[in-house]
């Protein structure tokens, strides 16, 4: 019997949601107060009210809406391709011992390369446009999915596999009935990481290549930042990008809960944690 020791979520009078909303309100209020008090020059950091006004204005801006749609489409397309290629590939590579070791090694060396660094060479190779963005997103998202899928396969209980094999099931059936469900939570985490990476690359590429590459939030921010710059507009667009990120994350959590009902999927920060620590020294 443990006494009141670990912090618990309080329940009764002030549910967590109310507190969260208060938190947001306090933050906005404080930001506005700091701005209005003149502590920070408005040319450096605009007033919160200006930013919020600009952000809500964007909701009616057809070009911005088109940009959001384009970014969303790029994300969906890129992530979709990555999942469709990456998960089976990871399962395949992870199932064959020699290939697994080799792939692991390649992944370990290619993973540290920041994908944004590849925006430039790929853009030179393929020219600005959807092809570049899609290539980068698929490349960037492939690593977390491959790594996590293979890590998930590693984690499968060998006893469970042997049990099924003892009943005469073939290798493919074992994968389908034991390995895949067991590895599924890891794969799901990999997808959430890949989703965050996809969004980053989508917006990042758009910003670097600009509007010639096509519509997108990145291009919009680049436009807003050009010339004398329009800081409130940039901040407003970033707020929308953040909201998009939140919505996409909620979407993935919802999907995960539907597909893996047995697994306690937390709303938490799965995309900010890795499946596991690096397995061995470099």
């Amino acid at each position, binding site marked *: 019997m*443990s*006494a009141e*020791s*670990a*912090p618990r979520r*309080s329940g009764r009078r002030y549910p*967590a949601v109310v*507190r969260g*909303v*208060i*938190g947001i309100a*306090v*933050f906005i209020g404080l930001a506005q107060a700091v701005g209005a008090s003149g502590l920070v020059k408005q040319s*450096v*950091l605009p007033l919160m009210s200006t930013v919020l006004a600009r952000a809500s204005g964007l909701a009616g801006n057809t070009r911005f809406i088109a940009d959001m749609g384009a970014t969303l489409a790029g994300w969906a397309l890129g992530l979709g391709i990555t999942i469709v290629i990456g998960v089976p590939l990871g399962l395949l590579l992870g199932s064959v011992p020699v290939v697994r*070791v*080799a792939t*692991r*090694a390649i992944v370990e*060396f*290619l*993973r*540290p*390369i*920041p*994908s*944004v*660094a*590849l925006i*430039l*060479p790929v853009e*030179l*190779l393929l020219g600005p446009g959807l092809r570049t963005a899609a290539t980068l997103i698929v490349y960037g998202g492939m690593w977390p999915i491959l790594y996590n899928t293979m890590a998930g396969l590693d984690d499968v209980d060998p006893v469970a596999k042997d049990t099924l094999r003892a009943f005469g099931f073939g290798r493919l059936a074992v994968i389908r009935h034991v390995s895949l469900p067991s590895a599924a939570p890891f794969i799901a985490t990999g997808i959430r990481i890949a989703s*965050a990476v996809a*969004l*980053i690359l*989508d*917006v*990042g590429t758009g*910003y*670097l290549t600009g509007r010639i590459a096509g519509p997108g939030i990145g291009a919009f921010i*680049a436009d807003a*930042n050009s010339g004398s*710059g329009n*800081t409130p507009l*940039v*901040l407003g667009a*970033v707020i929308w*990008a*953040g909201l998009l*990120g*939140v919505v996409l994350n909620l979407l993935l959590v919802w999907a995960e809960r539907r597909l893996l009902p047995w697994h306690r999927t937390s709303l938490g*920060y799965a995309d*900010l*944690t*890795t499946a596991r*620590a690096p397995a*061995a*020294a*470099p």
Partner: protein
Amino acid sequence: MRRLGWLSRWVVLACGVGLWQLLADWRHSAFFPPPSTIASAMHRQWFSGPASHLFLTPDATGNILPSLGRILLGLAIIVVTGIPAGLAIGRSPVLTDFLDPLLQFFRSIPVVTAAPVFIALFKIGTQMEVATIVAGTIWPLLLNTIDGARSIDSVQVETARAFRYSAWEKVRWLIFPAALPKIFTGLRLSVSLSLILMVFAELIGSTDGIGYEMNNANQSFDLTGLWEGVVLLGILGYLMNGILYLVESRVLAWHRSARQGAS
């Protein structure tokens, strides 16, 4: 057996590089120069300096060092601010309730947007770059620290109460060590992100640095130069992960062994 695993990855790397070399020599492509070309270009540009300067050329000291400096400064800032804040928030369920939606929102913002924001705010320069790195990398560290502080074993906490540890003693001997595994998880991610943000920030808002050099290479269609940058970043990322791994295995030796030893 473990030695074999360690060796095998270098064998794989060597094979991969060898394969690339063969392909590049066979199909001469301006877009994919062979590793030998890239390696010699890197040597020429960065590593052919005097021994007294660790073989670094002025180009290297003028670009690689500032980039590293920005990363290290950014990481230092997030460690010094993020860990204490994370521990405090994690131990206070009230504070967590208030801050959670706000934190969820901020960490969902694609990190690269920090760069345009800070260019708009601070204009070009080191201030903008460090701010970008800090703004992007603090989230994994902060949120994982909060998670670590929040999930401390209740019996350990009760023990601290029963022996009447002061607040500082609790932090030093219980909360911080108990949260350390999660802190390192966050740190690993923050370190990877720091590389990404450093490059991105320098691509758009800098007058020196690796990203700046890559930007120049881009504008003069110098693909070799671009690949040089990519390879260098890969090496830096690998080294940074490696150093972090070494530190982690030292500091968290008890953690791995305890989990293996647990019944």
